[in-house]
């Protein structure tokens, strides 16, 4: 579905991405895990055609892409209601209000999410606001969902809740998902495949298969299988000098 081959990228003669090969099959959840500045976001921008790569081949068969931003509050439109924010990608495609409403109703039902849709965005908690950005990404029925550090600004308890919800939704909808993340536990829990990147100029240090039967978050991250994967991942993480 998506593949990046031998991608290279420099900014002002500083090499950020040295040579990266990456692939994501249909229905797969893949996480890019690496230190700050290793080019994870650049890689996504290259995939989305927002940044040009210096070299390499990009194959992207996704027609509709949903995106969940790290700075989720800033990506929302505070002058609109929760509902209008979620329906924004549909409204700009001139889809009728009735169809929009029907799609929202169906999406809320399938995701089992309850949100005050008529209220203003500012009245929502951080977790609720992030769910709005997730619903906004899902409302277009995306071929590809991109999550840019979706939990980075939440406390541990909320991270668990959101991770479980995200796991449930992505599997239920069989979504092809690429996530950028800093937390190893969440990445292993959510992903089918984990790409560990080296510090810049980055290369893929290791691709780890994380696909196994997962139950709830706490039970999963304390299972032997999970701990073994964590061990493999940690062995391939290069510590960053301060």
């Amino acid at each position, binding site marked *: 579905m998506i593949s990046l081959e031998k991608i290279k990228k420099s900014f002002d003669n500083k090499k950020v991405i040295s040579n990266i090969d990456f692939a994501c099959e249909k229905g797969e959840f893949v996480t890019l895990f690496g230190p700050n500045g290793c080019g994870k976001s650049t890689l996504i921008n290259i995939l989305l055609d927002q940044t040009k790569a210096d070299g390499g081949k990009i194959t992207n068969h996704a027609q509709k892409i949903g995106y969940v931003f790290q700075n989720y509050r800033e*990506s929302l439109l505070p002058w609109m209601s929760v509902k209008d924010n979620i329906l924004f990608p549909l409204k700009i495609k001139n889809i009728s209000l009735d169809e929009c409403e029907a799609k929202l109703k169906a999406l809320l039902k399938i995701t089992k999410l309850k949100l005050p849709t008529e209220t203003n965005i500012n009245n929502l908690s951080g977790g609720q606001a992030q769910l709005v950005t997730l619903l906004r990404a899902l409302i277009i029925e995306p071929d590809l969902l991109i999550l840019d550090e979706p939990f980075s600004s939440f406390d541990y308890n909320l991270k668990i809740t959101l991770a479980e919800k995200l796991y449930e939704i992505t599997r239920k909808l069989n979504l092809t998902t690429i996530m950028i993340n800093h937390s190893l536990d969440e990445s292993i829990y959510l992903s089918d495949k984990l790409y560990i990147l080296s510090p810049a100029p980055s290369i893929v240090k290791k691709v780890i298969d994380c696909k196994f039967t997962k139950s709830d978050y706490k039970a999963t991250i304390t299972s032997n299988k999970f701990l073994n994967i964590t061990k493999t991942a940690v062995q391939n993480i290069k510590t960053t000098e301060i």
Partner: protein
Amino acid sequence: MDRLIKSSGILVILLLWVIFADLLKIANSTILPSLGDTILALFSLDTLKNIATDLAQSGMRWFYGYLSGSIIAIILGLVIGSSKLLQKSSLFVIEFFRCLPVTALFPIFLLLFGMGNLSKIAMIAYASFFIVLINTIYGVIYQNKTRAKMANIFGCSKYQKFQNITFFGSLPQIFIGLRLALSISLIITIVAEMFIGSDMGIGQSLYNSFLTLNSVMLYGYLIIVGITGYLLNILFLKIEKKILYWVQ
């Protein structure tokens, strides 16, 4: 208690006025008339009628000037702010004219528009224009980058991006400009009436009071100008709160 704290500043000023003018009689009544005399003069029927006419005249000049200058500035600011090319090419012109005080341009306005209302309205519009223009341009330029990226990813057209994101995103900065321009345009209204001259208007009456050494009315008009500015500011804040309902 809150009201008392809020009005304490003005109460202190009035108290000092009474102490210096009425009790200590430090200055003669031409320099600082009695507070009581000033208020009594203000509330006489003839004066009230004159003040109402003056306020209507000055208000009309201010309203047309402020409104026209601000509307043109917002439209131009949105256009310039949206185009890097226009930003670069207009920077010198904007900075040049912005630095010219409108009072220094009085003769030009008189030559262009004559002695009537038009020259005064044009001056008020000019003074409002640059403040609102600069703020609108910066409002557009310093948009939230994440929202712009979101719009691109979801496939917004340029017009949809402007309509749904750029315009609303720049409104808080536009309102900062409008609020600044509100007080500057009031000052220019008074100054233009004082120095260009007119049949009626607060500035003209204030100047006449000075020429005839009618200190009671001079101070009275100053009070009226202050109260008018204060009330307009309150009205502006109420409108701002209504329009920018999402700004916390």
